[in-house]
């Protein structure tokens, strides 16, 4: 970026939501409602200040926030808007400490905007970065957790006005279990504020610059559309996206299991992929792309489905039979590729013990040897 991002304005919202949806890899919740909510706040004069990661003070109390729940529910049970802000206030009340800045747990999907909505309400800045560089379905799947962030106190708030502070949890898996159980009872969608972190810890562990990245991706897509260029091509050129497949959706299986949207999509290839069949496995997010028997991309690398005509990212809850889509991939942040991180966000953590994580880059290099 030529200029450093210092604030989010109304004019940024379309690009930001679009970029966040791309980084959402099919999940993270549809950013549309969050975008409307944030626009409303900004138009009423609220401010969303953005702080670059380097400028976070070491002694700040930084809280990562976002919505938790099934994305399918999020689009029907519309949030009240202050869920995240109230979760943060519940944390402040419990720990008797003020929060200095917010950071997204996940930049992907609606959770890119949730910290901004809360920041606008609370008058604190958001950090340019997040804990995933994408979206993941479970709360412990962040670079913060992977690097040993405290698991408690964390707080949940729902649209009815209920608040639950997880004041002590045995480990990050218990945090996920208890938070998930409470969320399901709250109606499968809630705001979640995680244990306050020091600014110093956030500087060491956050995925850097992802708010700027989401905005830039969104701007690329909008510019490509305006210039009548192919969006996937623009994303490949400007952001290093890998164009992995083009096809028509022939089947969508999706069900709610324990608060997750779980299923898969089948695609029948066209153009250069004619005659090929692809399958994308979903657990809120797109996790595995197989073309034929070959695994082309696997979590934690990013797999996104874009509408073939406009490059609109298609989240898993709006997948439909007959849609024509481009499947693209982005390499994940290096912080997610360590053995320690792969234990938490690698294929095995999602129930694919048979898959070994092969980074997108290498795979593509290997594939380049095949005549195509």
């Amino acid at each position, binding site marked *: 970026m030529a200029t450093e991002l210092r604030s989010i304005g109304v004019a940024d919202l379309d690009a930001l939501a679009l970029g966040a949806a791309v980084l959402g890899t099919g999940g993270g919740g549809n950013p549309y409602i969050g975008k409307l909510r944030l626009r409303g706040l900004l138009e009423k004069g609220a401010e969303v200040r953005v702080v670059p990661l380097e400028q976070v003070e070491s002694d700040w109390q930084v809280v990562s926030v976002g919505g938790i729940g099934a994305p399918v529910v999020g689009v029907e049970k519309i949030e009240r808007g202050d869920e995240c802000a109230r979760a943060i206030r519940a944390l402040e009340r419990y720990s008797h400490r003020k929060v200095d800045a917010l950071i997204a747990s996940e930049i992907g999907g609606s959770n890119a905007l949730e910290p901004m909505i809360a920041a606008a309400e609370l008058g604190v800045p958001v950090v340019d970065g997040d804990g995933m560089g994408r979206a993941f379905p479970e709360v412990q799947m962040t670079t913060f957790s992977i690097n040993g962030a405290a698991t408690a106190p964390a707080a949940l708030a729902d649209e009815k006005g*209920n608040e639950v502070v*997880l*004041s002590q*949890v045995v480990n990050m898996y218990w945090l996920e*279990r*208890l938070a998930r159980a*409470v969320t*399901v009872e709250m109606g499968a969608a809630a705001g979640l504020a995680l244990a306050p972190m020091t600014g110093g810890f956030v500087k060491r562990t956050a995925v850097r610059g992802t708010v700027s990245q989401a905005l830039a991706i969104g701007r690329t897509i909008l510019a490509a559309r305006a210039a009548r260029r192919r969006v996937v091509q623009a994303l490949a050129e400007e952001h290093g996206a890998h164009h992995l497949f083009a096809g028509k959706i022939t089947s969508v299986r999706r069900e709610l299991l324990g608060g997750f949207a779980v299923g898969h999509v089948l695609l029948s290839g066209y153009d250069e992929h004619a005659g090929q069949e692809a399958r994308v496995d979903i657990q809120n997010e797109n996790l595995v792309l197989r073309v034929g028997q070959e695994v082309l991309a696997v979590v934690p690398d990013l797999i996104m489905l874009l509408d073939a005509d406009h490059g609109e990212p298609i989240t898993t809850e709006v997948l439909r039979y007959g849609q024509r889509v481009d499947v693209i991939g982005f390499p994940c942040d290096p912080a997610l590729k360590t053995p320690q991180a792969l234990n938490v966000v690698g294929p095995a953590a999602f129930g694919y013990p048979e898959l070994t994580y092969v980074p997108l880059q290498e795979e593509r290099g290997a594939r380049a040897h095949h005549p195509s």
Partner: protein
Amino acid sequence: MRIIQAEDLKDLATGAAVLGTGGGGDPYIGSLMAQQAIRRRGPVKLISVDELADDALVVPAAMMGAPTVMVEKLPQGDELTLAFRKLEAFLGRKIDAVLCAEAGGLNSTTPVVVAAETGLPLVDGDGMGRAFPELQMESFTLHGVQATPMVMTDDKGNSVVLNTVNNRWTERLARAATIEMGGSALIALYAMDGATAKRAVIRGTVGQAIDIGRALREAHTRNQDGVAAVRDHLNAFHLFDGKIVDVSRRTVGGFARGKAELEGLDDFAGQRLTIEFQNEFLVARTPDRVLASTPDLITALDMDEGSPITTESLRFGFRIAVLGIPCDPQWRTPAGLELVGPGYFGYDIPFVPVETLAAQDQAAARS
């Protein structure tokens, strides 16, 4: 004021099972824990709610979960006191007395453990005067006391603080967390001041449970009729004596639901009775009329011993006496009946006090 000694716990457990109306969980394990705590820390002072200062802070301590789990997954020891202490820390104020949330069943003994461990007095009274399956079903709710802030702790080291919009939501969210915690949790909730406690507490029910247990024990030592001892002690209505000829039971939405069919014996020969239950006994009826319904207490006693029988131990061939006991008047108000009346549990019958039903029954017999 009276003193609860370790020896009183057996009587308390027996009496609490009578007030448990078939549910509330087996108080046996809790009574052992309370005995141990009293032996270690000294006896517990049982005070009248009137002895509390108006600005005193009073907090109930209890266990939450499925009774069948609670008797198998024992508290590690300090979880009960831990929830209580954590709520105290959250409120930022010393708690002055422990309160019983549910005098029927297991939760009659849990506050005794906390009182012994903390050295605080225990208020003689509770929020139900019996057992009920959900945590909003407290006389405290009728007096506008918020269940939250509420603290829950488990055996693994997790703890949760809830703040909810109403007590029904406390139940829902706490229940979800309890299930995830393995089916049981220790809770502290319904913090209130002394002035509120004086209005809201159903008085004397802990002492009453001890007295019921003692009356039954003394009847046994004197070789007297145990059923009569309990009945006379409580001025209960003797609804039925009979043999269980059928029991059906299923678990629906976390409740043990079902019914027992009885064939009359002795004075009741030739008659039939059905008792319907959802954790607790809720409705007792003959083929043509209701004899008693929630929130009045329906208690089953073993006909020979007079010992209370829980819904999970109902078996074909058991000979039981069924007693009906008027509930606390608070439950008979419109607000009380909305919370715990037959309608809440899905029975399409109006609540009629057990004494009215008994009078109608006698009138019918005379005519």
